[in-house]
């Protein structure tokens, strides 16, 4: 099973779980084999990424290697921004962690 962005989906892949739109409306069921039409519908309803069955399907984004020095630089900046935040709090820690990855990835992309 792999988490795949809708933009990376290919027809023939099989859903590993039910898919709902942003408002929680049911769109497609588990085990549905995707066609081009399904993929267009997922895009139209604003779905980001979905779980797909199968062992040989690559996770979206996992192939991108961010250089270590870029990560460290972003981490230093972000820790400064979080100087007054409560770093014992799990949500805050996760937000810091994800923001570092996000910002580093977007700079690396440029």
């Amino acid at each position: 099973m792999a988490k795949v962005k809708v933009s990376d989906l290919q027809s023939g892949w099989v859903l590993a779980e039910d898919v709902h739109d942003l408002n929680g409306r049911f769109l497609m069921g588990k085990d549905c084999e995707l066609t081009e039409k399904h993929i267009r519908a997922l895009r139209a309803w604003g779905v980001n990424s979905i779980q797909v069955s199968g062992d040989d399907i690559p996770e979206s984004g996992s192939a991108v290697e961010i250089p270590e020095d870029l990560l460290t630089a972003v981490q230093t900046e972000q820790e400064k921004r979080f100087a007054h935040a409560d770093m014992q709090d799990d949500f805050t820690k996760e937000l810091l962690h994800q923001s570092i990855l996000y910002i580093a990835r977007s700079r690396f992309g440029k």
Partner: protein
Amino acid sequence: MVSPEQIINGVTQVVSLPAVVMKLSEAIQDPRTSNQDIENIVSEDSALAARVLRIANSAMYSFPSKVDTINKAVTVIGLQQLNDIVLACSAVKAFQNVSQDIVDMEMFWQHSIAVGTAARLLAVQRRESNIERFFTAGLLHDVGRLILLMELPVKSKEVIEHASQEGCYLYHAEKKIIGYDHAMIGAMLLKKWKLPDSLVLSTHYHHKPSLTSQYQLEASVVHLSDIIVHAMNYGSSGEKFVPALGKKVLATTDIGMDVLDNLLEQLSIQYVEAVKFILGDDDSI
């Protein structure tokens, strides 16, 4: 010391909401109002109507067919929601004459629009009925900062210097140097504009949502959105630090860290579009 009332009186002489906002909220109260009436009111300002349509056609709604009239927009996004979108666009426009020398307005609204977008996404997550109300609340939460910059430019400069020397939050510096903060001043302006209490209180308490008993959810969602947007560094309100998360906020909003991944991704997409549609030039439609 200049009293908050004096500041609000000063600012309302320069900044006012366009008549369409009042007309629209009156029309919505009247059960006889038809979609066509709404279209007629909004279309009096053609730039505003075009802006609303661009938003209705954006990824925020991901509506499969094109929304090409206000009449259709009312059907697709709902009357109350449309009202809030009009208010959001009008509020941004109301401040368009603020001098660029005092504040980078582009950066300021980028921050505010990002907070609105995050608040809207959190409201969607919670299956709230009026998600645009959350967008507007996020968009307006920092207007007090613009007011302070406009009315007290010298003091505001001192505030920024003090915060950077001490490494403290701007709103702490505001309280120390001016005597009150942007959250309170912003709420006073929204009240003066006769906007709903949910917007007044979510603005007033966006740093301390647990202090309000009414509309604590709205204030908490704006608080959380502000934190997320500061972490992602979208735009700038002048604040250099990510605000500390209020103790009860996650429980009040029923939001957990499992939503962060998806939320940050949606935010990065929708925020760029919302900025383009709300701040973009009228002729780039």
